[in-house]
């Protein structure tokens, strides 16, 4: 039996009074694991989150979360979800422990279990000592962690994270992304909504891109990054001899902006092209810094997509 997808949308449409089409016949199935949700600013991803949470109803289409149709029991669906909003949403005069425990009770945990789990998840996110301090004095990093903790406290099947690295310095970003990466190992699927494609590449095994409410592309990160038909090679910039050598082997080469080379592999096929490049580099005694059949980043994939439209 196929594993249940994290969520599945079928012709999901949402039009707000006033005419804005936030989602336009969105159809996508996302497997368990972590998926990056990327798109232009605008109603798309927020609306999708609200639809997944059952807070609003679609004008057309349907959506299932962890195998459960949201329309049938929106409240029940919410008890299996965790949500980490982007904006500041923490009351300053409560301690992290009290807030997370109370929210845990409101997710359906019995009081004692809520206290225990609040303590556990705050420990998990690295707020072990600070959890008895009022949130007022927390840094941005601590606030983000508290927000993540309240999303995890009731052991959700799926968490919705809206820009979890916003406002964090590079170290904080790394730590937050590391935490998010661990969630799949705990059996928690993740939808990571973000503008930062680099974060998605680091953490998500699946990507969904939306623009103007429509699906632009969706697929496993690895697959999206694959670039059949080309081989990219970086020998540190000393390209002339290499270009000559490759051209002599009947390969089409172009020099890219970052001083790496792009070799067309349609003719010889991927494997043989890789070997040809390797051999040419070896012959010339050049350093092989990088070799790949993939895009260097999701950013590149996205821009190419955007450029094609």
């Amino acid at each position, binding site marked *: 039996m196929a594993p249940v997808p994290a969520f599945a949308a079928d012709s999901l449409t949402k039009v707000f009074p006033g005419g804005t089409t936030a989602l336009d016949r969105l159809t996508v199935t996302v497997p368990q694991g972590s998926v990056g949700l990327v798109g232009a600013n605008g109603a798309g991803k927020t609306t999708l989150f609200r639809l997944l949470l059952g807070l609003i109803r679609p004008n057309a289409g349907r959506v299932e979360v962890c195998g459960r149709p949201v329309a049938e029991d929106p409240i029940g669906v919410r008890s299996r979800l965790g949500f980490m909003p982007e904006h500041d949403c923490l009351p300053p005069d409560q301690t992290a422990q009290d807030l997370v425990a109370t929210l845990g009770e409101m997710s359906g945990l019995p009081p004692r279990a809520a206290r225990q789990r609040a303590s556990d998840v705050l420990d998990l996110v690295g707020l072990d000592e600070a959890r008895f301090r009022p949130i007022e004095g927390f840094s941005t990093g601590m606030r983000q962690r508290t927000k993540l903790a309240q999303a995890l406290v009731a052991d959700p099947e799926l968490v919705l994270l809206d820009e979890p690295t916003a406002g964090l310095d*590079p170290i904080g970003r790394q730590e937050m992304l590391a935490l998010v990466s661990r969630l799949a190992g705990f059996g928690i699927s993740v939808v990571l909504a973000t503008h930062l494609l680099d974060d998605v590449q680091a953490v998500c095994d699946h990507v969904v891109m939306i623009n103007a409410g429509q699906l632009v592309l969706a697929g496993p990160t690895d697959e999206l990054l694959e670039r059949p038909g080309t081989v990219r090679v970086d020998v540190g910039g000393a390209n002339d001899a290499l270009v000559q050598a490759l051209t002599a082997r009947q390969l089409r080469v172009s020099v890219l902006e970052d001083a790496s080379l792009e070799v067309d592999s349609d003719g010889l096929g991927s494997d043989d092209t890789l070997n040809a490049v*390797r051999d040419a*580099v*070896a012959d010339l*005694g*050049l350093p092989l810094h990088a070799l790949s059949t993939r895009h260097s980043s999701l950013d590149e994939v996205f*821009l190419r997509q955007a450029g094609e439209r």
Partner: protein
Amino acid sequence: MSALPPPHAPDPASTVTDPAFAHDATVEVGDLSVWFGPKVALSELSCSFGPGVTGLLGPNGAGKTTLMRAMTGLLGPNTGTVRVLGRDPRADRSVQRTLALVPEDEAVPPGLTARQLVRYVARLHAVADTAAADASLATVGLSDVADRRVGGFSKGMRQRTKVAAALVTDPTVLVLDEPLNGADPVQRAHLITLFRHLGNEGRTVIVSSHVLHEVERLAERQIVLLRGRLAAAGDHRAIRDAMADRPRRVLVRTPSTRALAGALLELEAVSSVAVDGTELTVSSNRARDVAVALPRLARSLGARLDEVRPLDDSLESMFRELVR
């Protein structure tokens, strides 16, 4: 356009070898110390910025905001000097007009339209060209929405409005704090292109950001602050190389894992090889030597190299090593 320093070109005869100091520096910081009561925000900082795009990095509390404010004359040094185009930005009005700061969190008055806001800033700085505001808005891609109220803008659009307002005075020095905040991927790409273009024009563009992947694409030179002091400066790969005691790692994907691993281990330059499926992680203190040896070894073994990827090449990993 006001008189700019000559277009950026490396001066072979320059005696500047310290990467903390830029060629043709426009903003010079000398032994700068700033403190707020008992808290020392900057401690004897000496560095300079020149034409092109420079990244200003550091963890929270490292002193980046303080430095940006000191450079644009909003704050005075407690000790030390700040000079922009040779003059003191706090005292000299003429140099103030060549400076623009786009801070991260500053609110924009929501009732104004983008055009009104930029025009207002232009008038405030006595910008002669009446079309400057419109040109500025066009540069940041807000022409279509220029007559809408800023209050209704998304975060990314507000940021771009602030950048347009900064550009309208045709500044020589542009200091930007998290300018890409809230921008979606397409807007980010546009802004990155814009900033690089401004840098190529010869302006001194200083960008502070926590999203290191992007600073890497944006800036050719970095200044890294830690706890109010200069921790590192220059090209991030060169900085990484300067941390010679930490080994560099390279990922190699090949079907002939064991054979290649064995051969690599015979190299003196290689300190360790980790095997995981078809992936090898090769650590060494002499990355270049390994890079030269790798294709040769692979060829002699008939080992196809599916992927070779340096794991420590990014600004992100340099930063991580630096603050560890």
